[in-house]
């Protein structure tokens, strides 16, 4: 009976491995075995020199770093404050941070598009109009940061909340204060270091979200990394697949780093598709 169980398990795992590994393997074959050219590594060697690769990747990274900074600056004080001084606001924040889950990215971007239209339609004579223009600067579209922060809120909130639950913030602060620390000192010296795992977790989830985000960026007409892959897909199929494979490996490395660095358990990064 035990042997039958083991057999069953290996069949399941084998089939799963087949389904998940074949597309990856086939993708690699696809990129190096070009019909008419034989085996070639052009698709990989030419990536760097292809137009738009560096700029789109840099744009994505800049967006990611900014988004991480903004979302942590907004969420960390709020999450700590909920534990310390304002527990009654907790349900409010919880609802606010869950709402983005109810609005799919495509619906969200539809809303953003119509908000951005208010600019030219109603505000063209006011100083606000300049703001509308500024946030849509293609070199650094602030509007994407705004959108990504909103989309990251649920995951960041969950990661931070899990981290804060594991440590007793109130006792930590009280212990630090009874040792003579001021409140800011207590927060910076006692609470934040204990939150490092949760912060790393939140940062990596956000990074993964921003690097892979396609829907909002494409429909607003910007060209970060995911949109760039999509755009070259039509003309340079081999290279687009090569970059896809590489981006998978990068995501993999990031998540492994996350598992190693933070020991974090929340692997459910934002689903997208």
């Amino acid at each position, binding site marked *: 009976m035990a042997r039958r169980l083991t057999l069953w398990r290996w069949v399941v795992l084998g089939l799963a491995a087949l389904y998940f590994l074949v597309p990856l393997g086939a993708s690699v074959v696809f990129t190096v075995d070009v019909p008419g050219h034989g085996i070639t590594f052009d698709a990989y060697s030419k990536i760097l020199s292809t137009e738009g690769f560096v700029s789109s990747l840099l744009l994505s990274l800049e967006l990611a770093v900014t988004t991480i900074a903004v979302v942590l600056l*907004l969420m960390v004080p709020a999450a700590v404050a909920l534990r310390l001084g304002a527990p009654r606001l907790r349900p409010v924040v919880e609802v606010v941070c869950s709402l983005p889950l109810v609005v799919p990215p495509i619906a969200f971007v539809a809303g953003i598009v119509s908000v951005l239209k208010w600019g030219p339609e109603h505000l063209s004579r006011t100083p606000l109009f300049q703001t509308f223009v500024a946030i849509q600067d293609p070199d650094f579209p602030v509007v994407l940061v705004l959108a990504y922060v909103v989309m990251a809120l649920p995951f960041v909130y969950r990661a931070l909340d899990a981290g804060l639950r594991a440590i007793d913030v109130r006792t930590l602060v009280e212990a630090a204060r009874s040792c003579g620390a001021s409140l800011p000192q207590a927060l910076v010296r006692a609470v934040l270091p204990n939150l490092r795992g949760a912060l790393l977790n939140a940062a990596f989830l956000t990074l993964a979200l921003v690097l892979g985000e396609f829907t909002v960026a494409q429909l607003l007409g910007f060209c970060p990394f*995911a949109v760039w892959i999509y755009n070259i897909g039509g003309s340079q199929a081999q290279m687009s697949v090569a970059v896809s494979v590489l981006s998978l490996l990068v995501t993999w490395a990031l998540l492994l780093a996350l598992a190693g660095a933070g020991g974090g358990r929340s692997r459910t990064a934002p689903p997208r598709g």
Partner: protein
Amino acid sequence: MTAALPRADVAPVASAKRRRRAPGWLAVVPLLVFTAIAFGLPAVAIVDGAFTVKDATTGAASYTGANLTASLQGPYLTALLGSVKLSAISAALGVLLGLPLAQAVVSSRSRALREAVLTASGVLANFGGVPLAFAFVATLGNAGVLTVHLGLKDSGWDLYSFWGLVLVYLYFLVPLMVLTITPALDGLRTQWREAALNNGATGVQYWRHVALPVLAPSLLGGLVLLFGSAFAAYATAAAMVGSAVPLVTLQIADALSGNVLVGQENVALALSLDMVLVAGLVMAVYLPLQRRSARWLDA
């Protein structure tokens, strides 16, 4: 609050307390203001736009339910139903395939296997979007490696179809299911299995009468989560099928980018509102299930 050491003078303590409570509220304010603007405005715009019709000649706007009615008719209704069907089928398959996979991992004693599969699931569950579509195009598309080498074309295979999309969606839905259900499977106590055997149940009876009923809320919760994830997916479908398969996300994108008739933005917003309602429904089903399963499995 901080430990209040006994003090003779009461007033300073009270004032100190007040001074300390203020930052508590203040720290939450930026978050609320930010979401009010960055999330609230688009949300209002969706609702407002969904109920507004603009007269093309005069530019006068009026409130009406016409957009919503339009969004539930003709090609839009087809797309909405197509999305629901695609999401429902791939979510159901994701649950059916993810459960045995997760159980195979959980029941294995090897920690390494467990860590490897869970980390891989974490990667693959997030491997949606454009890269996923391209990987499948390279594998099973018209010029895909397997299509060519196995001659699938002749047997009628077409990746750019409903079932092709299901196959691709499962690539991130099954790992998502594994991640969702693993904690629940971990929560199944060995005592339950042993108590069932001790009470004369066979292995099959244990699964039918104990394990599956106990897992039911988690399984349903997973189904709902997968449905929501598939329903909201846009990038994969956009990069793969264009508009060969009617999906509501593709319709919204078309309407937004003006690929179809001009002036359809408000119908796009109405469709968005439809999606929000479906997603809201999904959450409304998911949260109570989640709570119930937590009560059973973490007790």
